[in-house]
């Protein structure tokens, strides 16, 4: 990757992936071995808080700046990503309540901070802040890699408007970063997994739950043959790690009040301290069953220290957890799917470290669904790093392209594609039943080609291949009632256990043939042989089907003309 490849731009391009979050940002690149690597900044942080703070003209960034929220909140800018490219009337300033407040500046948003040594505050627009933030990120990457980083792929939420995108690209340009492409966060997360060298390409439906610091975004992504399509998204702008921090804060504040009769939350500085420490405590709880919180001079000059265990925390957070899982269920429903259709759930974002959320999600989905979160899967990647890794992967792919070339490729003319509305597969008719095996599932982007091998009947002979459109149905079967156990007369003491186990309906996917499309015959197949079926679907819904015996020389072919 480091070698010059003869691309005739003035300066050699060197691209990284940037995940620009509302609370935290990450930078990543693809190592010479082809693995995605998240770069630590000079302080050793891989999740760099998106915070800038100014004391006497000195700029602080990341964790250092975040610490300033307690003492220097008026000159500290945080949670500004979502203000970028928006009008003042459209922003929700709640997250910035404890830092510099956003203000109206013409049609955009700005902050009034003392960012120079002088006493008079300056008005700094949100794009300027973004530029400064990105410049620091770029600097960290450059320092780490020893090479001037001048371009990047940046991840954005799926609901980022064109205005926001334009503003971000402009701000990045200002910081000396050429934005090669802006990619959607959920897709970056899927790609972080698919871009691993050991990953294989398959057809799957993935739910990406991006549980961030201040907001959560969940998306259903169809991944077919390495092509990604977002089927539905759901957002909750008030749910995130901060909602969980609040529970910790409230818990300790109440404990403090019991002892000292003062509410530390009433005092802005006390609250800021609690918030900062509470976040650390919450993160610690994701890793260990117990966590500490200690704050010097929390309120009225009293030092405070206490512990909380995970069980307690999970008990208190039940409601918030339910909101997270509710959001996931909502998006599946919105996509017109059932939880049984989902093959994979990827947890992304900082709050995904919370083990209970992934465990609860496991209960929603079937056992076949892979839940990729640190608490449920050992092979899961760090949820906080997924976006940056995906962006780095994309950056490595497009960095040699001309800007014009990328522009052309991401235009709707190229990306708007017909997708299959029904699954295509092969029907199996036996004496007793008719079954359907999908070959191309619904929502596969066209053109698409799939090949499958089927076993021939035991004694060989002539074989019929019926290619059909199919649909899946959810079959609900009530488990057999175990009423008989409860009938005997002396059930005086069975009151306790009779209601414990509520039988759940057994739900399963059943495929049904909807419409036959074509029939092909293969003659004289050897006993125990195999038959290979190839289906190719054109964008105009035309079909080419070829069937041949594995090892045989001749194939039966046929084509159906498309409608459009």
């Amino acid at each position, binding site marked *: 990757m480091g070698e010059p490849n003869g691309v005739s731009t003035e300066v050699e391009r060197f691209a990284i992936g940037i995940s620009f979050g509302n609370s935290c940002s990450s930078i990543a690149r693809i190592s010479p071995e082809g693995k995605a690597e998240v770069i630590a900044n000079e302080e050793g942080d891989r999740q760099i808080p998106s915070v800038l703070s100014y004391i006497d003209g000195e700029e602080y960034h990341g964790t250092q700046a975040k610490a300033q929220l307690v003492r220097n909140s008026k000159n500290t800018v945080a949670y500004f990503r979502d203000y970028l490219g928006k009008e003042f009337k459209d922003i929700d300033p709640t997250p910035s309540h404890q830092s510099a407040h956003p203000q109206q500046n013409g049609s955009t948003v700005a902050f009034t901070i003392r960012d120079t040594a002088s006493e008079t505050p300056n008005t700094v627009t949100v794009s300027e802040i973004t530029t400064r933030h990105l410049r620091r990120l770029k600097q960290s990457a450059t320092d780490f890699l020893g090479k001037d980083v001048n371009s990047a792929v940046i991840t954005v939420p799926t609901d980022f408007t064109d205005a926001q995108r334009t503003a971000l690209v402009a701000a990045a340009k200002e910081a000396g970063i050429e934005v090669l492409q802006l990619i959607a966060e959920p897709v970056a997360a899927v790609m972080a997994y698919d871009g691993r060298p050991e990953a294989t390409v398959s057809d799957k439906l993935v739910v990406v739950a991006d549980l961030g610091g201040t907001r959560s975004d969940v998306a259903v992504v169809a991944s077919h043959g390495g092509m990604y399509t977002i089927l539905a998204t759901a957002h909750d702008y*008030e749910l995130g790690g901060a909602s969980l921090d609040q529970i910790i804060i409230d818990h300790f504040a109440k404990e403090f009040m019991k002892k000292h009769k003062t509410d530390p939350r009433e005092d802005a500085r006390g609250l800021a301290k609690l918030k900062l420490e509470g976040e650390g405590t919450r993160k610690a709880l994701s890793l260990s069953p117990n966590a500490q919180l200690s704050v010097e001079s929390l309120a009225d000059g009293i030092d405070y220290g206490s512990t909380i265990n995970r069980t307690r925390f999970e008990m208190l957070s039940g409601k918030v957890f339910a909101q997270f899982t509710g959001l996931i269920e909502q998006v599946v429903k919105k996509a017109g799917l059932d939880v049984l259709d989902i093959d994979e759930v990827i947890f992304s974002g900082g709050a995904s470290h919370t083990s209970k959320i992934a465990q609860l999600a496991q209960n929603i989905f079937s056992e076949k669904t892979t839940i990729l979160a640190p608490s449920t899967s050992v092979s899961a990647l760090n949820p906080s790093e997924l976006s940056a890794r995906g962006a780095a992967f994309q950056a490595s792919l497009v960095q040699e392209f001309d800007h014009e070339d990328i522009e052309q490729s991401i235009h709707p003319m*190229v990306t708007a594609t017909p997708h299959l*509305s029904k699954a295509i597969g*092969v029907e199996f008719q036996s004496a007793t039943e008719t079954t359907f095996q999908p070959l191309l599932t619904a929502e596969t982007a066209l053109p698409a080609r799939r090949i499958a091998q089927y*076993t021939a009947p035991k004694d060989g002979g002539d*074989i*019929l291949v019926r290619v059909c459109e199919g649909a899946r149905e959810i079959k609900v079967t009530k488990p057999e009632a175990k009423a008989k156990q409860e009938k005997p007369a002396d059930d005086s003491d069975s009151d306790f256990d009779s209601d414990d186990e509520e039988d759940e309906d057994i739900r399963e996917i059943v495929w049904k043939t909807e419409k036959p499309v074509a029939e092909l015959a293969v003659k004289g197949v050897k006993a125990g042989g195999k038959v290979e079926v190839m289906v190719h679907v054109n964008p105009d*819904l035309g079909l080419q089907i070829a069937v041949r015996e594995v090892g045989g020389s001749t194939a039966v072919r046929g084509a*159906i003309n498309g409608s459009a």
Partner: protein
Amino acid sequence: MASVQVVNVSLPSLPSGWTADKDFKAVGSLSPATQRTIEPVGPHFLAYARRKRHNRTFSEDERIQAEKTVKKTEEEDEDDFSDNEDPMMLQREAKDWKGQDHYAVLGLSKYRWRATPDMIKRAHRKKVLRHHPDKKAAMGQSDEDDRFFKCIQKATELLLDPTRRRQFDSVDEAADVDSPSKSTIAKKGLYKAWGPTFVAEGRFSNKQPVPLFGDDNSTQQDVESFYNFWYNFDSWRSFEYLDEDIPDDGEGRHQKRQTEKKNANARSKRKAEDNARLREMVDEVLALDERIKKFRQQARAGKDAKRKAKEDEIKRIADEKKAAKEAEEKAAKEAEETAKAEREKNKKNKEAAKNAAKKNKRVLKGSVKDVNYFADGEASAGQVDSVLGDVELIMGKIDVDELAALAEKLSIAGKDGAAVKAAYTAEAKRLVEAGKIKEGDAKVFV
């Protein structure tokens, strides 16, 4: 992309009689496709983009068209939540949240209990964007004026909690639809006037969906299920929301308990009142409902018709029975008469036959006498005896018809002795063959 899946299901054999040109038969076509945007990331996409763009340039028109047809995954914010806040409402204090109309605060007055949690969330966000105190401060307004914002937070918190929302919905008078007055009923008709009231009351039902009031054309079953539903109304309505606040500071356990008790009493009293009110309402409507009268009339008419039909049936059966009896009697009489006639006829026939037999026998005996017992000259007594004995024998064994035939033959033979003898001999031979007489029985006619 084209990796091979291996499926371990065996394909069906070719049914006999399946033929197609080149072994391929197109049966149908695919369903129309959905236009969606694929995400422009990943190596497979880049390969795809290269293929798609290869040697092709797209016109501006095509570009615009492509953007338009794509199915949207991000919904646009197009809610018609009302933005007009009553200035009085803006002055409210969150402290007396019990008195506030939470739906109005969020601009959901139009939806009230119909608002979904998602709508509440969106409405909340919209209000926050407008009324956040930090924004007001930034715009130069007083920093302290976050009263309405607190109201918004309170309203959202309450409405997003299902239990507390039900408590509020229970006493949400603004969602009630009052019983219509007589003039309204007269103007709009019973069904249109009362329908909304029932829909509003139906929001408290544990059983959903609530049957509709319907109209004049509703079936009896629908109407009955409607009234059954309302008379067995299963309501979740409760009145905790109107509870008196229990002092938190602990003025004393005694007072706290007393308040609790008072609250519990008030709740059950209100609940009972509510149930009674609902019952009264349904009674009132039932009394007014023309359909009930109609159905009753129909039922009565139906009953009358049934009774009449039953009576007719009885009469019909009686008539039938009578007719049957008469017919039977007549038939019996006729049968008797025919039997009598038959008997007489039989008697006559028998007599005639008897006479004929007698006559024939006479002919038989006469015939041998006429030929002088086959003797030339005076027949000896022995000869006469043996001839007559044979004749007797034949006569005894022969039946009536054969007798008649023989008699006829004999009368044709007349006085020709040989012919007479031949006739007898033939007859005797036949009888011997038939086994009626033995070979040696006949002495003369051999």
